[in-house]
């Protein structure tokens, strides 16, 4: 094995390690949804290449309202699905679309675009 193959393989392995760490190992902390006077836990979610914030912390037993605002025209993100709560919504560009649900059990629930490429989590605390 020559020096250049060693370098290539070392760099390759380092890149793989970086990808694993960057995409899978790091967990973002998440934003806590604010409690409004109406009794809803509300959180605005920006849809642009992903969900911002992509982790939303809520309390169990109180209704949650996520206000999605899609600010891009790419068709990828035109729908958001919350399979755990049986909800889905079309997100017309530039409009605020509210999705409401009741988090009954603590745990982590995913939401995603229709292709499952963009992902976010709802973290329900006890």
């Amino acid at each position: 094995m020559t020096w250049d193959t060693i370098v290539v393989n070392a760099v390759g392995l380092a890149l793989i390690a970086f990808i694993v760490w960057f995409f899978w190992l790091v967990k973002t902390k998440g934003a806590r949804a604010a409690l409004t006077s109406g009794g809803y836990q509300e959180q605005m979610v920006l849809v642009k290449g992903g969900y911002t914030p992509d982790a939303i912390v809520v309390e169990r037993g109180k209704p949650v309202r996520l206000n999605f605002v899609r600010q891009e025209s790419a068709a990828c993100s035109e729908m958001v699905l919350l399979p755990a709560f049986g909800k889905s919504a079309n997100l017309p560009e530039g409009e605020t679309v509210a999705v409401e649900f009741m988090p009954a059990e603590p745990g982590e629930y995913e939401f995603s675009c229709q292709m499952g490429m963009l992902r976010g989590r709802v973290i329900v605390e006890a």
Partner: protein
Amino acid sequence: MAIEVGTFGPATGVVTAAPPAVPDALERETVARGREYRSLMRKWWFGASIGVVTMVMSYPWLFPVLREWFPRESAQLWWVWAGMGVASLAVLAYSGNQFFTGAWQGLRHRSANMHTLIAMGTGIAWVYSTIALLVPELFPASEYTEVYYDVTVVVTALVVLGLAMELRAKGRTSDAIKKLIGLQAKTARVVRDGQEIDVPVEAVAVGDLVVVRPGEKIPVDGEIADGASALDESMVTGESMPVEKRVGDDVIGATINRTGAFRFRATRVGKDTALASIIRMVQDAQGSKVPVQRIVDVVSGYFTPAVAILAILGFMAWYTFGPAPALVYALIVAVTTLIIACPCALGMATPMSLTTGVGLGALNGILIRGGEALQTAQKLQTIVLDKTGTITHGKPVLTDVVVAGPFPEDELLRLAGGVEKSSEHPLAAAIVEAAVARGLALPDAEAFNAVPGHGIEARVDGRSVLLGNLKLMRDREVPVGTLEAEALRLSDEGKTPMYVAIDDKPAGIVAVADTVKADSREAIRALSAMGLEVVMMTGDNERTARAIAREVGVERVLSEVLPEDKAAQVQMLQLEGKTVGMVGDGINDAPALAQADVGFAIGTGTDVAIAASDITLIKGSLRGVVMAIQISRATMLGLPVALGALYPVFGILLSPLLAALAMSFSSVTVIANANRLKRWKPKGLPRRAEA
């Protein structure tokens, strides 16, 4: 009476019914899609036109004239390539800009998506080419210093084209919804203050009296208050024959009045109408998920980073073990892997086919609730049919009149009808109806006496009439003679015979039966031909059940099933390892419908049954079951096709150009499948759509 004013708002000029928001949102979506599509097509043409030049000039030595003008390693060629580098950068910046912005935004969310893959693939090819062009001395030999601008440009252009095609195909799936919305009437003629005035359909309120003339559309749902007509309900129920409607009958909005004029009382308006709920159901189905998609979801969370890792591993392997020039091969392998693995078709095919399938159902009078039902329907092995109301009309009618005395048939029926007129027994109604249908004037009965479990006796037109079973005849010592054999024959046919005696002498038999719907037999034959086991379930006794089963061609019969045992029977079949579909209409069928893998409710049945079902057949015919299963099969057939196109083997050394082509092709497959579904026609059923 302030409350009344509020309830009947429009009478005071207040419009209470909100206009349906659907068309507006849909319109905007269409406009937005159109804009996005045109933008993508501009990007495609820009990329494609530069792509052709780039492809040719990357290999000038393959072309006779160019070979002399631009020989290998000449200064001229270097300048041409430099120009290509600039042009391809322009393509990346304009046609491919969404890939780079998308990738960047994704990375900020620590997520990788198809944009990441395309951006990495094309970006690496461009950077490598540019380095090779500017500082060739970094590379050990001249064969390393070829440029791959063609890859950059053509891949970008093809992927953009694929996106444009996707968008166009998606627009088509909402056609079904648009078609349904287009069925809505725009205006309604309502009676206000004794005057007929035209108002927009949104302004019609519950309780309004609406006037409909021949040839006009029914604006909202309601109940006929006066007049009668034949209505064409095909757009909602799929029923092609006009349906006769009289006072008290329900009319459905969006159907067309054919012959007579009538007025009806609006019962459901705006988003509550049957049409609005059909539209909503189709829209809901768009967002529903099927099991196939769930697997896709799990995979795609790991998919993109995994592809990147795979590309790096491929690069390492080819660099270490591959043939010379190893760097070039390794690079091509990595770029190809990144581009071919784009999962866009994978994610798109499922929801698209589902929407098309559900829309197709809606247009044929079949409401499919969600993707799960659509996917399971094609796996059904056994279909359980409730007898009453599903195979049969669910309403007894007079089938036979046997004459055995001096009285002619009509006279016998007239007297029997006179007796039955006073009876509340459901079988009595059948006899009365038949007599009235023959234009017989029914006399009034006197000294009416119902003998429970036996029958009835009464005096009609001065004659004593007995009507009932054998026990009644024996009690009254009426000799039935040969009539008993007739009665046996009739009950073997699944009918209920009733002896008639006039003045204590046998006069004949009237028989009633719940008759089989005209198309039950052909639908059951079609189901059997599709390889499904058909089971009939009924509370009737074995003999009646067998008779009906013979008539419609069902072999397996579950008779004398108590209403509360229906669900258990379905479960028994499931325990046999079968995937079971259940078709029913009554409240007592609801648990069985919910128990079945797919529950089909007859739309003319009860609301409870419809709520418990996965699929509703608006038109009360078993043909709908056949069509629903065929639609399901046609839809699910499309999925593997689209998935298969995505993975044409992780083509080691498949060129990046072919990879991009394969990607675009998978989009084409999806479109082709959607079109295939649109041309779908029911198979194995005669054209006639009569119920």
